[in-house]
């Protein structure tokens, strides 16, 4: 039992990271209708920059973290400006191809600069476990979960109450009508890429602190697809829930498969199996709007 509780906690923590990355994906999809296949590589970019700052340049972690946020903003602006803006009005498939290309470019750049070895972040938080209801939890796990939740809360409030957040939702619903309000939709597009890069970058830093990073980190993006499709592609709450579900399911299923079937490696497919099952019952995801375009 203890073992499964541990798996559940692991699942929630990893799921929190998936939720963040899914949030980035959904923000881009909603505002610009672009399906971003480079989401996982944005995670990787943030993780490596933070790693580089702390380990190679000996910047204190908190500063490195803040600088990574700054870097993510710039990365978002650059990607939107250089890769996506020239494609406004082009067909969906061209835009998808560009995001796939972007993912390869980012991955190669990371391999070029940092190699393919696993990199380990320095220990920031104490290793002593905390006890929550008798279950030992590593402080870094707790911090990871709290940070993900906090970031999600911040963005929920932003979309609900800030002028720009409301304008982003308006743009997501009807671009031309948003333009008629005087909302500069190009700025909104750029902003959505910035947000996507920032939440992914934070996800990357968290992940680096838990597991260490390597140049395959981008495959995390693949896990985000079941999460967002579960959640319905265009819903923030759905992204949060979808991420958590995928995180928990893959950990629990993995444990169960090992215990009862003697199978290892079920982790990688569990999410997709469950996704297929859920979509058979709810074809538009748990929260999705009906007229959404499927990928």
């Amino acid at each position, binding site marked *: 039992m203890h073992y499964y509780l541990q798996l559940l906690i692991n699942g929630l923590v990893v799921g929190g990271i998936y939720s963040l990355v899914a949030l980035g994906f959904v923000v881009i999809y909603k505002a610009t209708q672009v399906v971003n296949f480079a989401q996982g590589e944005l995670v990787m970019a943030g993780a490596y920059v933070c790693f580089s700052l702390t380990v190679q340049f000996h910047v204190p972690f908190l500063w490195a973290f803040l600088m990574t946020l700054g870097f993510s903003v710039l990365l978002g602006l650059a990607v939107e400006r250089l890769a996506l803006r020239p494609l406004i*009005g082009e067909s969906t498939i061209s835009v998808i191809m560009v995001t796939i290309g972007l993912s390869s470019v980012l991955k190669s750049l990371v391999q070029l600069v940092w190699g393919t070895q696993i990199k380990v972040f320095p220990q920031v938080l104490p290793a002593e476990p905390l006890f929550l209801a008798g279950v030992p939890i590593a402080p870094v796990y707790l911090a990871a979960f709290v940070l993900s939740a906090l970031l999600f809360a911040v963005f929920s409030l932003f979309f609900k109450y800030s*002028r720009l957040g*409301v*304008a982003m*939702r*308006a743009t997501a*619903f*009807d*671009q*031309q*009508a*948003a*333009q*008629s*309000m*005087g*909302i*500069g939709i190009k700025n909104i597009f750029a902003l959505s890429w910035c947000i996507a890069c920032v939440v992914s970058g934070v996800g990357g830093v968290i992940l680096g602190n838990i597991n260490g990073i390597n140049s395959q980190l981008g495959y995390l993006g693949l896990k985000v697809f079941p999460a967002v499709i579960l959640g319905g592609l265009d819903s923030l709450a759905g992204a949060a829930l979808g991420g958590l579900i995928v995180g928990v399911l893959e950990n629990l299923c993995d444990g169960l498969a090992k215990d009862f079937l003697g199978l290892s490696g079920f982790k990688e497919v569990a999410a997709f199996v469950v996704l297929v099952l859920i979509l058979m019952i709810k074809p538009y995801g748990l929260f999705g*709007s009906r007229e959404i375009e499927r990928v």
Partner: protein
Amino acid sequence: MSDLLRIENLEVVYNDVVLVLKGLSLAAEAGKITALLGANGAGKSTTLKAISGLLEGEDGAITDGAVLLDGQAVHGRPPEEIVRRGVFQVMEGRRIFQDLNVEENLRCGAFTRPRGEFRESLDKVYGYFPRLKERRRQIAGYMSGGEQQMLAIGRAIMARPRLLLLDEPSLGLAPLLVEEIFEIIQRFNQAEGVTVLLVEQNARVALSVASRGYIMEGGRIVMDGAAEELLGNPDVQEFYLGMGASGQRKSYRNIKHYRRRKRWLG
């Protein structure tokens, strides 16, 4: 007597090939309501989008002519800049942000305005449309067509424009509501001194609030004049107000009549 808006010999092309406006000229006098009438497909909405810059997203382009606001050229500028210069378009079909609530829609209308005036503007909108106040937290997509039109005009009031472009505000509304909406448009025009360019199918009600009217056909203006003058014009009466030339019921048997009608309705 000065014109806030002047359009000179405007030509608009969609998709690089379809010429829709063919040298259109018109003027909107400051502080007055100007009506722009015409059959379906005449190019009325295109004219408004050419003014507000919204052609951009539809692969439409101004290939010739000028749009002058206060004598300054605004054509070719992006829509967000034109809104900041005080031009606000209420698009055809209301174009409410359906998954935002009423007040969030109104915030979008005030997007280009300083935060400080938001409360005051909101109270003004609720003064004109008490029904919106009752439904302020309601998701806009669930409101009736009439309420959505009120919301669309409410967003325009939030923007405090100098020039308000209205595209068929009577579309799909019951006659009583049409009267109510037009009365509010007239009140707004008089209270704030806003210049209005009003596109309508419902010529009678449009000319009853306008001081001047233009009639367009096939991308050009074919007639213009003071509103009463147009209301009294036999051709206008016949083809836009649904009256026979001498007040009798219309007859389609007359070939000459048919040709004239064809000329009008494109």
